């Protein structure tokens, strides 16, 4: 099993470790619900070094990414700006979702999912043929996400004199501090940073964050936080068998300008013309119990959809889910749970943002 540069730290902190896409990762250090609340109320940190960082450089880096991604990197006029996008196949199916940062002229950085890395890189290399572009996997970097209402000020304390160079960062911007890169992004619905730094410096930085009062949090809390924030998880909420238009991600597809020929465009335009039959919605369980992935969703008494991500929301104290249902589904459905049907309310995610319930 693969280890991140922070593996020893997790073991020393007594984390319960699990296999996550071939990586030995912390599920929780103690109670995952307490870790969840820690991020909503104060500051927590996640080792996300298992994710893959790819630097894309060269005179045609921009042209390449405008072809590769469903969102348009020309929206990244300002250096340092980040963009969320899907990478699609010719049928409009989602190969992966990712963040791309515009570091500088001819220089971009992409963060892709750990479990999809091999197929992503094979696809990206194939699509790079004919473009004057260089792809470099930065497995020399570790990545730590520090999230929560007090996360930024605690990171500033650790950065000391360097802090002033990131303190003014707007949301979804990144700044490079020598070999370190600090981005005001995340996967929790809270403010905070994602910090990339040389693998050899990760353990020391992690310790300094601990000393600054940032609590370690595992993948368990990361999942309930992102679900409350209404953020999709690749492999659960979308994959190659669905398009972004069926996944609550239409906002991430840049159809304008009309002459940008990104991979999957024709398939998405066809789907739009024919009508998108399904949509991804949020569900809140009215009864007690916990919604789970793959539970059938009933509309007007017949099975019509499925839960793609279901869990217990620690902030709301009840079960929530993302579900794929017919496009004309109204504001109430039923879910089959352990042989019984239970009523659920259909809502528009996010469920929670910046510590506040939105539903």
């Amino acid at each position, binding site marked *: 099993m693969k280890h991140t540069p922070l593996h020893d730290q997790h073991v020393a902190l007594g984390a319960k470790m699990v296999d996550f896409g071939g990586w030995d990762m912390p599920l929780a250090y103690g109670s995952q619900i307490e870790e969840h609340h820690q991020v909503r109320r104060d500051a927590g940190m996640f080792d996300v070094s298992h994710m893959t960082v790819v630097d894309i450089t060269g005179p045609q880096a921009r042209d390449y990414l405008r072809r590769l991604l469903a969102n348009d990197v020309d929206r990244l006029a300002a250096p340092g700006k980040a963009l969320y996008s899907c990478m699609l196949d010719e049928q409009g199916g989602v190969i992966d979702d990712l963040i791309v940062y515009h570091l500088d002229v001819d220089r971009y950085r992409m963060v892709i999912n750990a479990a999809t890395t091999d197929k992503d890189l094979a696809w990206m290399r194939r699509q790079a043929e004919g473009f004057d572009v260089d792809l470099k996997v930065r497995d020399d970097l570790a990545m730590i996400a520090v999230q929560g209402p007090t996360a930024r000020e605690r990171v500033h304390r650790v950065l000391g004199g360097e802090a002033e160079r990131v303190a003014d960062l707007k949301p979804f911007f990144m700044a490079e501090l020598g070999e370190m890169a600090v981005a005001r992004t995340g996967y929790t619905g809270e403010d905070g940073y994602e910090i990339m730094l040389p693998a050899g410096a990760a353990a020391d930085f992690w310790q300094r964050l601990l000393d600054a009062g940032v609590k370690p949090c595992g993948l368990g809390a990361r999942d309930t936080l992102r679900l409350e924030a209404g953020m999709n998880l690749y492999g659960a909420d979308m994959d190659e068998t669905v398009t972004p238009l069926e996944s609550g991600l239409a906002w991430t597809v840049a159809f304008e300008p009309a002459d940008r020929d990104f991979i999957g465009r024709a398939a998405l335009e066809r789907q739009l013309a024919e009508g998108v039959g399904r949509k991804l919605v949020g569900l809140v369980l009215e009864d007690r119990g916990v919604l789970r992935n793959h539970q059938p969703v009933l509309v007007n008494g017949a099975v019509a959809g499925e839960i793609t991500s279901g*869990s*217990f929301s620690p902030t709301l104290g009840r079960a929530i889910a993302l579900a794929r249902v017919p496009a004309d589904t109204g504001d109430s459905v039923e879910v089959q749970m*352990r042989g019984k049907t239970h009523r659920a309310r259909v809502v528009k995610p996010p469920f929670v943002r910046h510590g506040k319930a939105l539903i």
Partner: protein
Amino acid sequence: MSNIPQELRYTETHEWIRLEEDGTLTVGITDHAQELLGDIVFVELPEEGEECAAGDDVAVVESVKAASDVYAPVTGEVVAINTKLTDTPELINQDPYGEGWIFRVKPMDPEDYDELMDADAYQELISEE
């Protein structure tokens, strides 16, 4: 390491059983089971007076991670349930052998208790997992 009190009996499905002075059996899930489940957020209790056969699923314990059935260790009648778990299911995580008990059953045949696994046998079972 999980705590396995010597004075209790156990099942292969990770329930613990305590013989009370009145001959009823108190049932909960073991420290090992709650550790595997993680944070427990919901418990579905049986009803008082419900008849059960050994091996029936009579309660459900749901954590953030997974749902797990709780089985009746013996045939009998449910005579008490821990209603505190409705609002504070985390008692099972905090005190699995005490405040986290789930239900109490009056066995039809008191000798069924003697058939249950002792602490050493349960220790052996979980070390094989």
